[in-house]
């Protein structure tokens, strides 16, 4: 219990503020988590050029080797996330992209013509265009 100027703050005020804040944090964690917004990622779709895409489940860790136009691309699936760990291209954009962990995330090695994309139960968007 203390005062600022002639405004009185009581312990109960802080208890109220604390409980309301924790309620808000709980609400954020329910309605704003990536799972509720985008659904759970379930499979990794790997595609080379115009060939049929292959789906890999995300629940088993594995290393996937894909032969592309220039050489091999190596993709890693670990703990529900996926990334390029090696690519036979010059710029290595796909490797620098890092982990994909949200449904709809995708990355591609254009020179090597290999692209990967996370799929889930609900797919919030088809594609996102942007620049780095």
């Amino acid at each position, binding site marked *: 219990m203390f005062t600022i100027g*002639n*405004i*009185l*703050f*009581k*312990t*109960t*005020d802080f*208890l*109220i*503020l604390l409980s*309301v*804040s924790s*309620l*808000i944090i709980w*609400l*954020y964690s329910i*309605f*704003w988590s990536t799972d509720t*917004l985008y659904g759970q990622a379930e499979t990794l779709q790997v595609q080379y050029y115009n060939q049929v895409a292959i789906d890999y489940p995300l629940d088993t860790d594995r290393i996937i080797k894909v032969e592309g136009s220039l050489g091999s691309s190596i993709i890693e699936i670990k703990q529900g996330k996926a990334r390029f760990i090696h690519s036979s291209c010059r710029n290595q954009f796909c490797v620098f992209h890092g982990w994909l962990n949200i449904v709809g995330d995708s990355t591609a090695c254009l020179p090597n013509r290999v692209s990967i994309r996370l799929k889930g139960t609900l797919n919030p968007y088809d594609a996102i265009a942007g620049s780095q």
Partner: protein
Amino acid sequence: MKLHFSTTHEDHRIALLAALAISIYIIESAFPSPLPGIKPGLANVITLFTFLCYGWKIALQVSLLRVIISSLLLGTFLSPTFLLSLSGSLLSLGILMLVHSLFYPHYLRQYQPSAIGYAILASVSHISGQFIVAWYFFIPHPELFKLLPILMTFAVILGIVSGIITQHLINKLCSTHNK
């Protein structure tokens, strides 16, 4: 025919407070809001002040008068806006009464929250009441719940601000308030 009304001192007080709340509400509604659904809610300062200073009966009358008359003046009477306003006011006043009666026993009276605690409760319950009505009657869509945390965050911040204003009002104007 001539009608005679006898008015008491209490009636005058209710009229004065309601007029103040209505003016604040109407001035406030003229300002554009940066985010839809978020406004300072300064009219509730009057309701809270009335509640803490003069008790729940007067606060209920002031609050109902404020909701009905300002909606008549703004042309939103019986529209969704009016229902949202009404539900918010009633729930926030209900929560204030609940908490006040919770701390009513003499051995708990010293733990009674100050105006700031009451203001946070009032604004959070105000937005919850509006949200429940909006979701149940007007937009029953699950995506609406994504707005709830944002609305709640602003409710707490603006509640603290209106609590500080209310405390100033009580310090200046209220001689009989129960500490």
